């Protein structure tokens, strides 16, 4: 690494930042050196993204100093940080859906000819090469609207790389990626690191920290609390520093004797998407729906809930046939769906937390058609407390919450409906370790109280740790139904890849 003589590439000292009443940063410090990948860790709402936005010139710190190559510096706006060689991949996608991939990548920096016209040919060729080197099948001239979340992330990465920056900041870049894409990103990060780029990497997946990073900064409640070399730390010591306590059992699985069938899906088919999907979920049971991203799991959930149309099959809730295609009827029948893309599908970002949390239960809260703000706030506070929501009051706009805390609001909103059947898509994406344990505990409490849970998850340990039964989907079909006692990683992966399995219990 660098000798003491060369100053660090980027240094933030004792930065603080308030948003009105909220103290997002209190005492944040960070040293980023050339040729290292540096992990920035902390619970949801610890202030990681706020720190990133200060380095990127999006927010101005209230106090503290910023040094670039040892020189004091202030970024008045994002273009100043870009000019200083800092590239940022933000936690939320920052793309222009109506423009092409190439334009998204080069916006504001398009190659020009002598009289200032944009050279589309040069631009698209450069982007085409970049996309090939990233190993994705995207076209430079393609519109961004309609890209999957993973592909959007790839465009973000390409955008950051195209800056040829010597500081690269990545705020949870891997949250929406699956294994091969993560590996590709890591290979690129390592190449850049070896070329002397300083990389700041934020993630909630600790195994990625050990895989990629050299040093660690841990934040808690707006302050940097621990600096160390990655090699000096292990999983448990990081978690302890992050949450300020030791976590008890991670997967609080209890055995519940399953009751009667709460959700029964029969030969559900949507042409081109999934076919002959049949399974039961009993009260007190957690059934995991595993499989590769794109196997059709979320689509099945959406069809059961009535969001997407189906071409055949039926769904019974508590033994009663559910009329498909009408989400309102599904809610009335006692179904709840926590969607995968929570920011887009689950939250009204401009509304206060309390209002968001009560949207699903307005009818119940109302007295003579009027809804009392107090009842709303109580409801939000109840679930907020259960999920350890970090928010100043229940009256702030949901959009100002940290990424992980937004997810908790959506979760609380659906739990407030007291459903008989909870369908939850990727329950812990973007949620920190502490809150993960809370989510697992909540799920356990819910099934103990007799709820039936269908959990879609791509995280195998979560599936193995929490599920009573694992259904595996591959290419729109259920390829395996494995009881808890027989489930292991190999069997699930084999079924997810469509390799031969023992005959199904309920063959389609």
């Amino acid at each position: 690494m660098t000798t003491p003589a060369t100053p660090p590439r980027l240094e933030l000292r004792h930065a603080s930042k308030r948003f009105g009443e909220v103290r997002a940063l209190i005492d944040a410090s960070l040293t980023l050196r050339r040729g290292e990948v540096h992990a920035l860790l902390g619970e949801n709402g610890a202030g990681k993204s706020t720190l990133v936005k200060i380095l990127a010139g999006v927010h101005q710190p209230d106090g503290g100093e910023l040094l670039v190559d040892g020189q004091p510096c202030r970024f008045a706006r994002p273009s100043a940080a870009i000019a200083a060689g800092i590239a940022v991949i933000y936690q939320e996608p920052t793309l222009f859906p109506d423009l092409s991939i190439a334009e998204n990548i080069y916006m504001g920096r398009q190659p020009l000819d002598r009289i200032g016209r944009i050279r589309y040919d040069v631009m698209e060729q450069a982007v085409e090469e970049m996309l090939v080197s990233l190993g994705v099948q995207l076209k430079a001239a393609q519109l961004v609207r309609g890209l999957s979340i993973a592909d959007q992330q790839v465009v973000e990465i390409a955008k950051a790389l195209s800056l040829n920056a010597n500081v690269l900041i990545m705020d949870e870049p891997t949250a929406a990626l699956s294994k091969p894409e993560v590996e590709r990103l890591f290979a690129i990060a390592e190449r850049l690191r070896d070329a002397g780029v300083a990389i700041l990497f934020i993630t909630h997946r600790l195994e990625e920290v050990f895989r990629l990073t050299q040093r660690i900064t841990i934040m808690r409640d707006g302050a940097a609390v621990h600096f160390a070399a990655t090699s000096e730390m292990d999983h448990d010591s990081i978690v302890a520093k992050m949450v300020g306590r030791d976590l008890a059992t991670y997967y609080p699985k209890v055995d519940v004797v399953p009751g009667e069938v709460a959700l029964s899906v029969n030969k559900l088919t949507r042409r081109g998407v999934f076919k002959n999907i049949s399974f039961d979920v009993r009260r007190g049971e957690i059934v995991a729906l595993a499989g590769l991203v794109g196997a059709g799991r979320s689509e099945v959930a959406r069809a059961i809930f009535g969001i997407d149309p189906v071409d055949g099959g039926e769904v019974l809730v508590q033994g009663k046939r559910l009329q498909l295609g009408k989400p309102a009827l599904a809610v009335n029948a006692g179904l709840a769906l926590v969607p995968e893309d929570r920011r887009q599908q689950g939250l009204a970002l401009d509304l206060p937390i309390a209002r968001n949390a009560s949207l699903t239960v307005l009818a119940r809260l109302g007295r003579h058609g009027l809804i009392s703000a107090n009842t709303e706030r109580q409801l939000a506070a109840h679930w907020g407390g259960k999920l350890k929501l970090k928010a100043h009051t229940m009256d702030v706009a949901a959009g100002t919450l940290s990424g992980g805390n937004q997810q908790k609001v959506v979760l609380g909103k659906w739990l407030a409906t007291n459903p008989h059947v909870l369908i939850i898509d990727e329950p812990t994406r973007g949620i920190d370790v502490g809150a993960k344990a809370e989510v697992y505990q909540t799920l356990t409490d819910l099934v103990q109280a007799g709820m039936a849970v269908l959990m879609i998850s791509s995280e195998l340990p979560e599936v193995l740790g929490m599920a009573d039964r694992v259904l595996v989907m591959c290419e729109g079909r259920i390829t395996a139904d494995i009881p808890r006692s027989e489930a292991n990683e190999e069997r699930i992966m084999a079924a997810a890849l469509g390799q031969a399995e023992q005959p199904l219990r309920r063959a389609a």
Partner: protein
Amino acid sequence: MNSIVHMPKAIPINSPTVPVEMTGLTQPASKTEPSRWFLFLGRHRESTLIAVLLALIAGTALASPHFLNLQNLRDVLLNVAIISMLTAGMTVVMLMRHIDLSISSTVGITAYAVGSLFVAIPGLPVPVAVLAGVLIGCAAGCINGALVTFGRVPSLVATLSTLYIFRGIDYAWVHGGQINATSLPDSFALLANGDVLGVPVLVLIALAVLTVIGYYLKHYRGGREFYAIGSNPEAANLAGIRVSRRVFKGFVLSGALAGLAGVLWLARFGTVDASTAKGIELQVVAAAVVGSVAITGGVGNVWGATLGALLLGVINLSLVVLKVSPFWQLAIQGALIVLAIATDTLLSRAIARWTMKKRDHGEA
């Protein structure tokens, strides 16, 4: 504790390699093929508009022998020329997810101001008069831009107020008076009514203005920034675009075009009073929307908007030729706007659904 293992993403399936048991899942070719028409429509909105325009002309010509003649062509082009310049300005503003309702008042006040200038200085050179009009329009645009960017007033509210304020000033100033063609030099009237090789000068001016703006929007960084801002304002800021500055410029451009349109209005009609151009802001918005400029920003271009203006102009004339009551004209304009927006929404939904399917299953 447990390490978290992530599952690999499904390998995209391309139709030729789809395993046998999967073919039942993929849509039969006969079902996918006809569903592509919307892709064509979505990519070629301009061609669709041209087709509708031609059909309309052919239909009216068949119904009435008095429709197809040079005088009507000339009238339509002259009418649309001024509207289309305003529509170009509106396009720029709408691309940024804003709106400028004040343009009609700007046109009115500029026309009267330039007319008064001619009354005060009879020998005023025509280029100076045009420049004066554009500058007055710029000033109006600056006020709108300042309200929206510095004042953070939503553009709908800001320009609705300036629509009334500018018109109010106009009324107070004109005070029941009028500018007459007799006060205007002949060389000035030629701006609108002169011909070059049989083409009205006004139409040539409009074409030149539209070409410059259309080219700028497509080929210059500044032009693309209008799209970026409307498509995702927050991302535009993060990409280093000076959003406020660009929005301000957009409103100034819209104002400048309204100023130019005011001068040309004066040249064309000669008579100007306090209610000149009242209400055309909605015609202009309608033309832009019919020309598939999205009110939600980020989508559209000057040529589409111009076709929208042309279509509305031809419809109005057709209704006159077919002796339809003027009340119906408004209703038909309204219906057309609804139709345009509905088509856009349905198209984009169809396309979104299609790309989603294609993405998940490697079809097509």
